[in-house]
């Protein structure tokens, strides 16, 4: 089950903790992967550890021209694109009273607009081939909200609405569009939290631990597989029971 041999995948934000795990998992199931992100060096390192069937196309998700180039180069490198994992995302946390327009706009631009642009750019090939899997990495906070993250939560909630709309547009063409919503996952981002902060978070997680990037990647593999053909417009929450929606 969930064999991805012969499939091709593009993962954005692949230099991050979760993105790297997703790329590794898709590759492990047999897919050819293109790693994208802004940190070319980290991408090359991941490529070296994955070995063959791996390509790197660095790109900025806040640049429309760069996004179109990414779509073209990924398709050219792999010959086609079956699976798109929109994982790239940034945070610019601030309480709303203090949040600057730039902080709001930057997060919306990268996390939401960039994802839409890239998905639009790869749709054509998927439509022609009557097969496509789009998996958007959203977040628990897109559903529950989080103080200090009005911008991030808005962008992540936006991804869910966008995915449902795309899912309806594309379902008849064999293309599914779903979201994976991680809860608190152990990554370099959460390593920066103090013990008190971690304790506070864990008090809200019935599983009483942080999740791992591999646990997110496993959800992505499922949604990217042939077996998940009848699942579309859904959000898969992977959060240790932190929110049950």
């Amino acid at each position: 089950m969930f064999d991805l041999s012969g499939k091709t995948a593009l993962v954005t934000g692949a230099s991050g903790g979760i993105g790297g795990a997703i790329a590794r998992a898709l590759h492990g199931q047999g897919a050819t992967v293109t790693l994208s992100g802004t940190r070319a060096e980290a991408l090359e390192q991941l490529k070296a550890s994955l070995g063959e069937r791996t390509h790197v196309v660095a790109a900025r998700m806040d640049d429309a021209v760069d996004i179109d180039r990414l779509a073209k180069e990924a398709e050219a490198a792999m010959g086609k694109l079956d699976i798109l994992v929109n994982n790239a995302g940034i945070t610019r946390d601030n309480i709303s009273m203090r949040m600057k327009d730039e902080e709001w706009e930057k997060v919306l631009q990268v996390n939401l607009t960039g994802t839409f642009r890239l998905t639009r750019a790869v749709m054509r090939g998927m439509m022609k081939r009557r097969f496509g899997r789009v998996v958007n990495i959203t977040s628990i906070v897109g559903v529950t909200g989080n103080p200090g993250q009005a911008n991030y939560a808005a962008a992540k909630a936006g991804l869910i609405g966008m995915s449902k709309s795309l899912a309806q547009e594309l379902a008849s063409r064999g293309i599914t569009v779903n979201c994976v919503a991680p809860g608190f996952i152990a990554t370099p981002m959460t390593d920066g939290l103090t013990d008190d902060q971690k304790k506070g978070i864990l008090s809200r997680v019935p599983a009483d631990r942080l999740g791992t990037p591999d646990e997110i990647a496993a959800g992505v593999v499922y949604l990217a597989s042939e077996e998940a053909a009848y699942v579309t417009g859904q959000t898969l929450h992977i959060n240790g029971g932190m929110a049950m929606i």
Partner: protein
Amino acid sequence: MSDIAERVKKIVVEHLGVEAAQVKEDAKFIDDLGADSLDTVELVMAFEEEFAIEIPDDAAEKIQTVGDAIGFIQSNAKS
């Protein structure tokens, strides 16, 4: 010229699964031939491929009938 019309009609028949007799020049893709909005996008993509042309979005929006498509391609196709 009629060659273009034949090729356009063939694509429409294949893509929308309609009878060739229905594909008249004044037939509207959506109202008369049962296309949905995604079908019209795919038809434009198929025309672009068949005739090696680019149909910009604003031109694509104006292509509503079989005759519109033939007309646009006749004035823009190289082959």
